[in-house]
């Protein structure tokens, strides 16, 4: 009985320690390591043709801002086409994108979907054939790219091995609520430290589905977008990497986004991410572990840890339950100086690894005051833990195939894009 409880507990503790070490490696790399950004200085080049896909479902509030921003992009006009995909919107999105398409013929080509499976992945799957551009970029409709972003995102594709590129997402509506401020910190940690460290260490940066893109040849090589997943971005990342393509992260390619302003919206978002990520874990852990010849072991290990990020929350909860059960059953883990030291060491360092990452990101960004909110991140951590556990349980015990639908995060913006920027 004791062993049956102890072995899983030790395995869970080992997994948590591995993640803590991973956080420290990434953070120390960002604080003291070489910043690797080989493509960031490509400012002049024979730019390839680019199609920017904008999947939209009820985005009338924001899609006009995004189209204005893309029309103002510093990219050769004859090599850039913007393709808003209106997927059965009911709020006037169709009218907005049609007006732009009429006003900018040849530059904006609107596609309207009224049939087929709904959802971003399905929209991309169906419409990616609408353009023969060399590079396919994807943005969410609420994003606000800067003038130079398209060139920055396209630059890495001059490397023939690069299949996908990911830029950095920066929250715009930071000042709205405590939640938005915490998400701002979380995003900073995720991109400034986590993604960039993986880029520095030549591991597997993740293509995030927006503020990024894929090479059409790579897309075709891996069989196009999949619509049977809740995280088409993670799915694409691992299919590309397994097939021999490289995924690149560009920390300097920044783009504003809206983050959820309410806890229910955040919980919905994190649950969707967890289920999508877990789907990819189930699909790709074994192909990764078989290690294709082109992948070094460090990339395999990083890939598996990346896939397992959301699986850690339920494991952590199980670990807590096991530890409590062992204590009350009168079967504490073996005592001894080494165990006590290990626990003390983990208590002082391990628990705070993720927070250390966020703090380092705030420092690298030059943020001063916002770092004081770091202790409040425990709230976000606990909410995420419970949400991810519930999402995973639902995924494991509800065997039925989930219906495809638009998984949309609520939009909060009103007025012009400029007003949105200055308001924030």
């Amino acid at each position, binding site marked *: 009985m004791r062993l049956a409880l102890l072995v899983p507990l030790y395995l869970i503790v080992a997994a948590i320690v591995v993640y803590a070490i991973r956080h420290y490696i990434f953070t120390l790399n960002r604080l003291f390591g070489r910043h*690797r950004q080989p493509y960031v200085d490509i400012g002049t080049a024979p730019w390839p043709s680019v199609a920017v896909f904008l999947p939209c479902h009820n985005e009338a509030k924001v899609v006009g801002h995004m189209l204005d921003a893309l029309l103002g992009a510093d990219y050769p006009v004859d090599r850039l086409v913007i393709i808003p995909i209106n997927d059965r919107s009911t709020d006037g999105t169709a009218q907005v994108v049609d007006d732009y398409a009429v006003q900018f013929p040849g530059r904006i080509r609107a596609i309207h979907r009224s049939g087929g499976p709904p959802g971003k992945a399905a929209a991309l799957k169906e419409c990616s054939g609408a353009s023969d551009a060399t590079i396919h970029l994807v943005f969410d409709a609420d994003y*606000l790219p800067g003038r*130079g972003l398209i060139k920055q995102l396209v630059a890495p594709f001059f490397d*023939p091995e690069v299949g996908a590129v990911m830029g950095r997402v920066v929250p715009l509506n930071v000042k709205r609520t405590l939640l938005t401020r915490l998400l*701002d910190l979380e995003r900073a940690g995720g991109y400034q430290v986590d993604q960039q460290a993986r880029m520095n260490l030549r591991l597997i940066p993740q293509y995030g589905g927006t503020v990024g893109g894929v090479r059409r040849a790579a897309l075709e*090589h891996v069989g196009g977008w999949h619509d049977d997943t809740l995280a088409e971005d993670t799915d694409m990342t691992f299919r590309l990497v397994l097939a021999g393509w490289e995924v690149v992260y560009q920390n300097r390619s*920044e783009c504003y986004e809206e983050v959820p302003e309410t806890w229910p919206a955040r919980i919905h978002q994190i649950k969707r991410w967890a289920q999508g990520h877990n789907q990819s874990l189930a699909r790709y852990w074994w192909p990764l572990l078989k290690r294709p010849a082109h992948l070094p072991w460090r990339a395999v290990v990083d890939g598996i840890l990346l896939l397992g990020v959301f699986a850690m929350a339920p494991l952590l909860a199980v670990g807590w339950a096991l530890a409590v059960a062992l204590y009350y059953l009168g079967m504490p883990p073996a005592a001894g100086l080494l165990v006590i030291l290990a626990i003390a060491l983990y208590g002082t360092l391990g628990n705070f690894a993720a927070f250390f990452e966020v703090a380092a990101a705030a420092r690298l960004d030059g943020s001063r*005051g*916002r770092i004081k*909110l770091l202790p409040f991140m425990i709230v976000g951590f606990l909410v995420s833990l419970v949400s991810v556990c519930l999402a995973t349980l639902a995924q494991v015990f509800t065997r039925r195939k989930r219906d495809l639908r638009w998984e949309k995060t609520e939009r909060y913006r009103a007025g012009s894009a400029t007003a949105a920027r200055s308001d924030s």
Partner: protein
Amino acid sequence: MILALPFLGLLTLTLAWFLLPLLPGLREVLRPTDIAPLKVVDRASGHVAHFARNFRRYLEQQVAGLPTEAQAGDFFGRLPDGTPFLRVHKQSDAIEREARQGLQSQLVVIDTPATLTGGETFLMELYVRASMVGGPGAVYRAVYAEHDLVLGDDSAVLRWAHACGRLTVGNRCTVRGRLSSDALVRLGGSVVFERVGAPVISVGEPADLPPDLPSALPLCPLPAGARTIGNFVRIQGDFTVPDGTRIAGHLVVAGRTRIGLGAIVEGSVKSYGDLVLAAESRIRGAAVTRASLSIGPAAWVEGPAIAEARLSLDRGAVIGGPDTPATASAPVIELAQGATVYGQISAMGGARTL
């Protein structure tokens, strides 16, 4: 009641201890001091001439705000924002006169073509409405010329220099920051710089474009382990493209790569190790390496050339083309006489000419 007091005291202390780390955060929540989105988007300074163009715009606005009598002729005074300002309307000894008093500590505008004697130090920007020939040993914070600009030997630029016409940089100059021209930048020997942008950048006289190679070069045999991935061929280990052969598409080599004499790659090349282009070889796309890139005499990379360690261009080597400008980027770059880049050179760790 008395028995409960220690408990309550302990509870209060515990709560206070728990809340202590939250106090700065609570204060930040109630009185936010750092609440704006990160100022990272819309940063357009990626363009080499960004600062130069911004300065020109700034100066136009400031000069427009001057009183009418100050808008023409020689003028000493201040711009509307308080910046000390000297305008030299005709070639005169105004600058030398000022220089004798010490450093040029005001923003200087020269309205007519000018030739400076050398040795001046401009602590603020210098703007020339015509062409300017600088003397040796001058120090410029930043200089903008509406026509041609010559920086004399042994001069230094602290921030940027831009010419709408040709920009000639004398021997042994040091340029910290950016050099740009709308026409051509010609670099002398032993010049140290970081970023240059122009339709043509050359060390000495620009090299002629290498001649077309024979179109019927034999195909390069690929090693047994070569694997086609999408639209590129991947080779594990070191690889040499033999002299006078050609590769039909993109190539990725997980090792060191050598493109042989007169060989041609019709697409782009990526090498995990050093990438060496022998004389008169050619890559029609980009050349990318995680290590060092060496471009031999009269060899030509038509697309961007990216090296994560070091990039060297031998005499007559070319990057980009008149119709296909490109970027040469590496932490350290070395250019021999006659090397030519059409587009942009970026070396954050410093570039130098031989």
